[in-house]
């Protein structure tokens, strides 16, 4: 079994003025290559912390994290930056595009931080990524703040794809979009999954989770067991397609 990520018993404790916050309490999770996993949980459940940990933006207090077999829990800042630059693609709720730069430059942005893409190939790769999110070519030279929300998010997905990462991490990617546009974005993810990309999507919206291959629920810093999960599904009012 080809595991893209494998985390074992991750804990994350924050120290703040108010005392210690135990955001993750022993999370274990593995994701196969080509899987579309959805992690669901209400706010405060620790899903953002989990997302940051998976994205190598944050290091766990204890536990191990293997990304494509590499132990990233022991890496220093610069090594993590290198991992983020080459192995992870981020999609954010608020898109986080550089507003004054063109679509193409936004998509090329991760390439300037990784050393494995020759300058003359950058544009070709960005165009390929934009094609795979079906953004019409006429928008490539637009400033990103001239686009609609759905277009912006597709640009952001293209940016996440451009380095051909092992893992695409999406944090509430449809949170700022209306439902029709949201569906378009989700279908983009599904198509990417069909092309063999590994996607971990975090949401609190059960509608969204129905697009994924597998959904896991997080509560109070722990992933729920199958039994607890069935309980959650029974009580949830919406039934998604992906949960059979």
């Amino acid at each position, binding site marked *: 079994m080809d595991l893209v990520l494998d985390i074992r018993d991750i804990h994350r404790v924050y120290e703040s003025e108010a005392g210690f916050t135990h955001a993750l309490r022993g999370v274990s999770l593995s994701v196969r290559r080509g899987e579309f996993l959805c992690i669901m949980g209400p706010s405060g459940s620790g899903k953002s912390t989990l997302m*940051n940990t998976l994205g190598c*933006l*944050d290091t766990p207090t204890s536990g191990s994290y293997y990304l494509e077999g590499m132990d990233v829990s022991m890496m220093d*800042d610069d090594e993590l930056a290198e*991992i*983020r630059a080459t192995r992870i693609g981020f999609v*954010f709720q608020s898109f986080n595009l*550089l507003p004054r730069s063109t679509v193409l430059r936004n998509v090329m*942005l991760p390439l*300037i931080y990784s050393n494995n893409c020759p300058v003359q190939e950058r544009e070709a790769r960005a165009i390929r990524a934009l094609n795979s999110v079906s953004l019409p070519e006429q928008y490539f030279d637009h400033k990103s703040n001239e686009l609609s929300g759905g277009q912006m998010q597709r640009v952001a997905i293209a940016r996440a794809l451009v380095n051909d990462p092992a893992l695409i991490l999406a944090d509430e990617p449809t949170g700022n979009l209306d439902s029709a546009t949201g569906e378009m974005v989700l279908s983009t993810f599904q198509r990417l999954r069909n092309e063999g990309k590994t996607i971990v999507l975090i949401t609190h919206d059960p509608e969204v989770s129905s697009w994924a291959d597998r959904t896991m629920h997080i509560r109070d810093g722990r992933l729920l067991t199958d039994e607890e999960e069935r309980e959650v599904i029974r009580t949830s009012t919406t039934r998604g397609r992906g949960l059979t």
Partner: protein
Amino acid sequence: MRIADLATETWEALDANRGRSLLTILGIVIGISAVITMTALIGGIKQSLVSSLGLNQARAIYIGVYSGNSVTQADADRVAEKVSGYKFVTGYNYGSASVTTGNKQKNAQVVGVRPEYFEAIGKKPGSGRLIQEEDVSSMSCVCVVDQNTVKELFGDVDANVVGKTIRMNNDDYSIVGIIPAQGAAMGGGTTVFVPLTTSMARITGSQTIDQMIGYANEDADVDELVSSTKSWLERYYQVEPQQEQGQESGDFFGGAISVYSMKSIAQQLNSTMLAFQVLMTTVASISLLVGGIGIMNMMLTNVTERIREIGLRKALGARRSDITMQFLLESVCLCLAGGIIGIVLGYLGSFGLAGLASGMTNGAPVTPVIEPAAVLLASGICVAIGVAFGYYPARHAARLDPVESLHFQ
């Protein structure tokens, strides 16, 4: 991160904030233009003084004996004979007369000279000829004037007055030649050169000379010649050697025997200018310091405004050093842009103020001198300011936590 990428990012960031960037660098612009104006003017003043004083005549040595003895041309010849290293030593005297030309009357300084005098001060005739040996031996009433004097007497600096006659002390002198303008320090104003003998007979009425000017041999060490001349003269006139209270020999202030070369004047001039320069540099430094703080302030605002962008860049794989470099380069570019604008403005300003500065040289024109070294130094200072005042904001940006900055509102 590649240099080219860094440059593009920097340009985009600065371009986006053009108005604010321009305001921020104003302090640097003012500081640098002050430095450039100052160095250009000082260079110009120096050059103007050097050419008007004949400071380039490094081989001329001025000898004055003020011991109460009467000094004659014979003494001058003796100096040339006894102190080795002189091509010649020639005496001259000063007198004054009222000069009448047509219906104009002016007071003039009259310098009685021998032909060698002009070689020593490095003047060639602009038109006509100089005082010649026959003029001296025949005590003829001829004179040479400089261009300043032409202007004073005839109203037009370029007037061709060779062959014209001026009247001094009831004698008519015909102008035989014109030399380029003398500087203010050399007497300026209205100066008429006549043969030494003529001056002795008709102007000063005395056979003595007032000063000698020696012309060193080409291979002679001028400094050494100054001191050997001085000590010889002290022995000759039996004058107590002057107490050298920390002053260099050849100082032309005080003493019964004064021997100095233009070289020592040039040195004194340099030290005077240096003091001026230090003062101006202090003022400019304060402006640059204030400018630097302005840059730091803007960069800190900049970092706060772009926290989310920084978080994004980090999420996309930027290392701390990438972020540091990006912000550092922005501040260096800002300062450098300020410096370049300052250099241009300073250069223009120095031409604007050149007229004012010519007051310091008593009317001699001042052409600002731009030294490449000053331009390079100014640019270097700008880069240093950019690094010094950009480092803290850049480090602050680089150390931001990516998670927190991504969610910064």
